[in-house]
């Protein structure tokens, strides 16, 4: 009978101008931005909520956030494009590692509800999509209100601090994601466990690399611990970049100990299951790289068959 008293107010702007007006009207209350809602709805205390009346701005009807375009150099997606649509639209052109990441995020029924903007802005856990986009050097467009609406492009790594905590200005809206269309000699992605249902124990690893004369000339690697953040540093990339292939046992041990030390410095302790999974994933990745590189002849233009 009194259910409407606690019911949040829903605003559904149909374009960016209407969104700006809504933001201006509720400047003091920090309205709640709603994309796909997958992460928010899977919180245990979401309903019935203890919070008082809140303002929810649902972004689903803003046409501009559903657009995507592609040219020879990059693909650009609005923040409300679902990750399933990205996988469908970019099947032939996007880096394979990104498609692997999307496909392993969830099954199609759930993927059809997860939006790219929402998955980059989750607060409760870090998604592997964000980390894969980081190593692919994706860029994002942020819109934020000063006296009027401004927009600016950033590298995706700029919206996270060094441990992966979301760090965007208050009230800013992530409106577009731009992904460069380029392929790598070697791409590896693996996830263990589900970040949605078990963020404390799951993890994922992503690596892209280019080879030159039997060694890695360019490498970017990232580990994602959903409940804690990312393990990503230039030092780690440099460790990989100078590696001669196939990877020797001593180098393997050196890089592995670097990763474990990095975690202990930045995240203190991690659960034993997650640590053993991390070691296992790292071992699988190096073994896979060694296996594939032994079949690689190095002729110009050749890509490793995976």
């Amino acid at each position, binding site marked *: 009978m009194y259910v409407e008293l606690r019911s949040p107010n829903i605003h559904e702007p149909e374009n960016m101008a209407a969104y700006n007006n809504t933001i201006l009207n509720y400047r003091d209350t920090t309205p709640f931005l709603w994309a796909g809602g997958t992460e928010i709805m899977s919180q245990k205390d979401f309903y019935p909520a203890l919070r008082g009346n809140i303002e929810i701005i649902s972004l689903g009807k803003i046409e501009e956030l559903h657009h995507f375009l592609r040219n020879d150099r990059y693909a650009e997606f609005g923040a409300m494009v679902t990750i399933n649509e990205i996988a469908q639209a970019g099947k032939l052109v996007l880096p394979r590692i990104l498609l692997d990441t999307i496909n392993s995020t969830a099954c199609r029924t*759930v993927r059809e509800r997860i939006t790219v903007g929402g998955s980059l802005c989750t607060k409760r856990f870090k998604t592997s999509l964000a980390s894969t986009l980081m190593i692919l050097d994706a860029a994002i467009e942020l819109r934020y209100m000063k006296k009027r609406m401004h927009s600016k492009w950033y590298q995706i790594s700029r919206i996270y601090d060094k441990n992966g905590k979301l760090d965007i200005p208050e009230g800013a809206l992530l409106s577009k994601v731009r992904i460069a269309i380029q392929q790598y000699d070697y791409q590896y992605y693996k996830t263990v466990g589900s970040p949605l249902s078990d963020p404390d124990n799951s993890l994922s690893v992503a690596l892209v690399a280019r080879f030159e004369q039997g060694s890695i000339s360019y490498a970017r690697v990232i580990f994602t611990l959903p409940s804690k953040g990312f393990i990503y540093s230039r030092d780690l990339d440099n460790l990989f970049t100078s590696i001669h292939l196939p990877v020797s046992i001593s180098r393997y041990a050196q890089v592995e100990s670097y990763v474990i030390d990095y975690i202990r410095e930045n995240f203190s302790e991690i659960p034993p299951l997650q640590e053993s999974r991390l070691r296992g994933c790292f071992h699988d990745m190096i073994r896979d790289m060694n296996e594939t590189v032994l079949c690689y002849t190095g002729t110009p233009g050749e890509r490793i068959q995976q």
Partner: protein
Amino acid sequence: MRIELTVDGKYLALSLSSDKPLNLLLQDDLEIRSVTSHCNGELCGNCIVLLEGKAVLSCLVPAFEVRGRTIVTFDGFSRTRDYRDIERAFSSCAVNPCDNCYASRVLLIESIIRRYESTINDFDEAEILQEAELIRCPCLDSRSFLTVARESLFNRRKRKNVRRTQIS
């Protein structure tokens, strides 16, 4: 908040909290018996309904998103002819899922069939096996789910083709 929607062919207008999950809306406000689960975000997969013909986990859909939309639950779907195709597939494959997850599995299969029935493509097996894992109930393995889904698709295509031939 006032919400108007169509559930199992009935047009309804409800007054409720705008952030109420769809599964609780169906259970509490409409007393639909086939949606029994509220896992509090555990993603158990036992609350699937068809929203505009596509399977969704109703615990992930807030009430304000279903304004003016059409929902089909197992209660309504089990009265249609399409349900017979899936029911027959379950019996012909000798697969008997438990009562808890049967409704969700049927609606998930229906959603998959709708994607494929008008094409000549065969299933993307990896995708269907991944879909099968959405429902966490251990009573049915993914391979059996795939078999039932394939058989259901066969039944559906056969029925529709026979009908098309009769009409022409």
